[in-house]
């Protein structure tokens, strides 16, 4: 891969930390446009990580249950990092120019209350489906592109399951009219 410091110089407002190119959420489009202009990159992955603040992170425990004993939350502990609650949104670009090809991670830190970021579907067409998946599962809004619906989950699904405060619904029995009718007639 090309030298990350050189790449960072080409992207306005970028900062390199531990091999990751950090950019401001509002300048994601300009950053990716600048990288695309350098040539040889392919956007192949977008992913998000939910990081609620350490205090409000009962991981799998219901968010509303204030009376839940803290022991229920102890199974998954988040390291007591100073970082406030946020979403980490990562774009991965494959560098196809150099001989030793590797990928570059471009990361934006989003607000936890209302995570939103400008869409890069106009820069890379591959972002279209990838952004839809991130919205579907993690609930990050992508502004500046047409409306879109669920891609993996069913259309009437409520919530975004990969968020840490998502409560998995109880599994319901699949409706079976013929079974119910037989049961009512006592034929089972």
């Amino acid at each position, binding site marked *: 891969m090309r030298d990350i410091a050189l790449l960072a110089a080409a992207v306005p407002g970028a900062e390199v930390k531990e091999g990751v190119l950090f950019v401001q959420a509002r300048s994601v489009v300009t950053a990716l446009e600048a990288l695309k202009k350098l040539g040889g990159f392919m956007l192949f992955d977008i992913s998000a990580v939910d990081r609620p603040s350490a205090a409000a992170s009962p991981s799998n425990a219901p968010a509303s249950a204030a009376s839940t004993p803290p022991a229920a939350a102890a199974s998954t502990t988040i390291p007591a990092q100073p970082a406030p609650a946020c979403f980490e949104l990562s774009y991965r670009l494959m560098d196809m120019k150099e001989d030793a090809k590797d990928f570059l991670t471009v990361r934006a830190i989003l607000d936890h209350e209302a995570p939103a970021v400008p869409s890069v579907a106009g820069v890379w067409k*591959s972002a279209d489906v990838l952004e839809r998946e991130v919205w579907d599962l993690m609930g990050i809004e992508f502004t500046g592109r047409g409306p879109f619906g669920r891609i993996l989950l069913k259309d009437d699904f409520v919530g975004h399951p990969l968020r840490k405060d998502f409560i*998995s619904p109880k599994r319901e029995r699949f409706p079976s009219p013929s079974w119910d009718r037989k049961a009512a007639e006592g034929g089972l």
Partner: protein
Amino acid sequence: MGDFITEADGLETQEFILNLGPQHPSTHGVYRARLVMDGEIVVSAENKIGYLHRGMEKIAEGITYAQFTPYTTRFDYVSGAMQPWAWCIALEKLGNTAVPERAEYLRVIVGEFQRIASHLVMLGSMVLDFGAITPWTYVFNAREEVLDLLEAVTGSRLLINYFVNGGVNADLPEGWIPKAEKALDSVLKRLDDFDRMVSGNEIFVGRTKGIAIVTGPEAIEYGITGASLRASGLKFDLRKDSPYSVYDRFDFEVQTLPTGDNFDRYMLRLLEIRECAKLLRQAMKTIPAGDIRAKVAKVWRPAAAEAYAAIEAARGIMGYQVVSDGSTKPYRVHMRSPSFCNIGIIPAKAPGLTLQDFISFIASLDFVLGDIDR
């Protein structure tokens, strides 16, 4: 005929919607395309996916690292053995585990045999979509031989749970390598028969050559990876370009073809199988003796960190992002699946194709729904 239907009858040509799938044999799973048709010409197409969504990324957050390993084979079930590879590399990065050399060779051997089996399925099912049943039996016979070999090593045929964090599960049984060499010869012979039967067939060529051409820049724009990218003339293969495991020790060529039409995408799989065979012979000749599994604690707690690993799976780049919080369960697992990105080009390329060309186009992209929906 035109005299019978007049404008006065109020009849006119109109477009209609055709739901192709999810229960349709040519969609290779539960893929659904919502097609707007003008007669038999596709006007627009929309991908409808998610029928096989099992919420794997969420499941991973509730179970331990070792427990999630067998789940990974259920993504791309046509190349099950290769699936845990990227996951295991990500875990090994997290835990700084050094994989024994013999285990790496075993991974390459099982992985490449699996790639051959997977490409054989693609070749067979693509011609099956054209109504050619006989060639399908040739490649499935060949695949059966490969699956027998895999079963002898791993114990299962399709959902092969062989790769583990730190190495592999089992060593080769006695006398396996000579058998594998012999089976490889017979697989290649069957493949040559298949090649002679199909690749020059006028109907097959007529329905694939010059249809649904994806140029190199387009393929990069849409994030297409794997054989479909190489069929568009781009020499990109992670095994060669960013070698993981022990791929840098083998001498093999990355195959490319110039046009990027349906025929090239078909032909490239054929060429790749022959290249895999070359690689496999080298690996089986030079496999060292030694351990097959590094010592990994039963209750495994990696340090709080993040790792990303990508491999060249049978269908393209498969990547895993694993975020650890220091406990026994992953904090977040994200999976980049090749098929999910590869089908993104279907709505762009479908308009103007006839329905039967659309079928051959989606067959040539070679996606697996378990890989798309996760």
